[in-house]
């Protein structure tokens, strides 16, 4: 059985070494048919790119530190279903420490 795959474009930026931000594309298989945005990010870090920076905490909406933008909209990654191809960006690009992790989150 082939599992459907979605295209996830992630904001990548290291203010110390990169002149400007860029987007990196990953193919993420939809394990078991349903995943949260945070599950997608964990899949990327565990299987595709261990260097991606984002925050994963309580997974259930308590800590609210996984706040980011999915296709421009500010949401919690843990409680948002990954519905199809998506662009993931930090809440505020000016505050980025690295990638999707902002100073304020």
């Amino acid at each position: 059985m082939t599992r459907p795959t979605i295209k996830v474009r992630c904001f990548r930026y290291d203010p110390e070494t990169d002149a400007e931000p860029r987007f990196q594309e990953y193919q993420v298989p939809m394990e078991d048919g349903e995943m949260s945005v945070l599950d997608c990010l964990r899949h990327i870090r565990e299987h595709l790119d261990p260097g991606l920076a984002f925050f994963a905490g309580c997974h259930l909406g308590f800590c609210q530190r996984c706040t980011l933008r999915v296709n421009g909209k500010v949401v919690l990654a843990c409680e948002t279903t990954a519905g199809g191809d998506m662009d993931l960006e930090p809440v505020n690009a000016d505050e980025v420490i690295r990638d999707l992790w902002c100073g304020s989150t």
Partner: protein
Amino acid sequence: MAETLYDRDLTCDVLVVGSEGAGGPTAINAARAGLDVLIASKGRMGRCGASQMAGADFNLDGRSAIALGLPGDERDSPERFFEDLVREGFFLGNQRMVEKYVEYAARNTADLLEWGMPVFRFEQVHAEEMARGIITSGVRWVRILRRKAREMGITVLEDTMVVDLLTREGRACGAVALDLRSGEVVLIKARSVVLCTGGWQQAYHFNSAAADLTGDGQAMAFRAGAEMIGMEMVQYIPMTMLWPPLARKSILPYIMMETEVGPLVQLLNGEGERFMQRYDPTTMEQSTKEIVAIASELEVEAGRGSPHGGVFFALKHLTPEGIDFVWGKFVEFLDQNGDKRSEFRKLLPHLLEMAKTEDLEVGNAVHFMVGGIKVDERTRTGVPGLYAAGECSGGLWGSVRVASATTQVGAQGRIAGETCPEYVGSVEHAEPERAQLEAVRERIMAPLERSDGARPIEVLERMYGITDEYLRVIRDGEGLQNAYDELNWLRRDEASRLHVTASRTRRLNREWHLCLELENMLLCLEMSALASLRREESRGGFYRSDFPYTDNDRWCVNAVISNRDGEPSLRLEKPVVTSMQLPSGRMTFEEAVASGTASLRRGEVEQP
């Protein structure tokens, strides 16, 4: 001298490692006593650790509750609460610690009420026959602690992982931490250190905890020479969501079981049978966490599980109208208390909607560490100047945690904050030894500097493989021996040569942090496997299929692990007794069930 070994240094009287349910009260009480307190938190205060996710309930005996203006039960008393805790913990608890728990449960509640913690309800929780529980919100609790700590001007180093303790002539004199944002190594000189770091749930794939809980406190205490107790006693919580993925790890079904809805719920196996009637026909699904977890796993082992390896939490028989009524009641309760937590507001209605047409798949998640760093009733470890409070400590509960952990962490936090000032007043700061600083720095930096070695993700997956296969609710000697051998090998041969494979940056490099956490989780697991293998009986939440009885003649003893040249070494020790004599004889599992749920049954008699 050692400038190159760290990037920054700080000095304080008390370093509190962890900022939440235990760390908050420790810091607040130590600051009240006039000490210079520094908190180092792996996350952000009020947004990390286990406490924020608590239901939450706080316990105290009925008589003390009345004294605080709560609707307690006059028949209750601190003595009765103490006896229930010792008996239902199957007598392994340190009775001096249980006495302190009961005493400080009331003081902790008084503190929290004074600081503005709301009381949603006062009721029966944790299977007591009498109301001993304040129901509130974990999020509100940790925010109150944060506000109080801020009011008192306590400094908090956030996103800062303490990696190792420093000792001089056998006593604690500080710690070395990693600032996760900047990657700086921070030296913290302290006259005393209190560990409030929680459990090591993340060593298990299916757990109900936040990502921070990786056994850092237990592991660093062990490396500094402190002992562990009860490491085999791991509490699993049944009725944790297995499916769908968005709800995974949520304990909402378990929480539902604790409400008025509880008696309406049916737990079914894969064949549609209400299996609890074969394990605990009197209390059925309302039995204790431990018994429901063991029963659920026995069903799965017998091939009667759900597709994702659990059992079914069924509400369908209530009809859609009945389920809407249940949700209405929840909404009323949430509105009345201004509770905005998204687990209740968003996930719960989603699950109830699902439950109209399908049964929810639930399983046993690793929930709470009953054992940990061996402390006395004043939270002192065997290392002078080193204290441990809350879940990272061990010795209070014996073999089952039968009352509230939120109360434990608050009570022990306050005790630690009251205990360390006396010690702090008697010692001067000690200069850390260069050799120790060098060794810790080497441990921190090595994974970034190695060009080859073990891949952290692979070690993590191997670790999950071991815990998934052998370190489950139901254990046996052969599996435990395999687990111990494999963990020992992983720790010594693989965790010692971990290397960062992707980015070499020192800023927010999760792969690097994982290397440091893996060493800690593997050490905790190995100690847990060692103690599990040694305990040839079943007791409380600890179940061995090759020894399915409670053997008080041989095993009413604690497994204590000490550090012998860096390796865990186990010895057995009688529990500390004050007023309740230790039992003798053997009990079958069925007799143990009756004993473990005695107060539930008593409750049924008293409430016709």
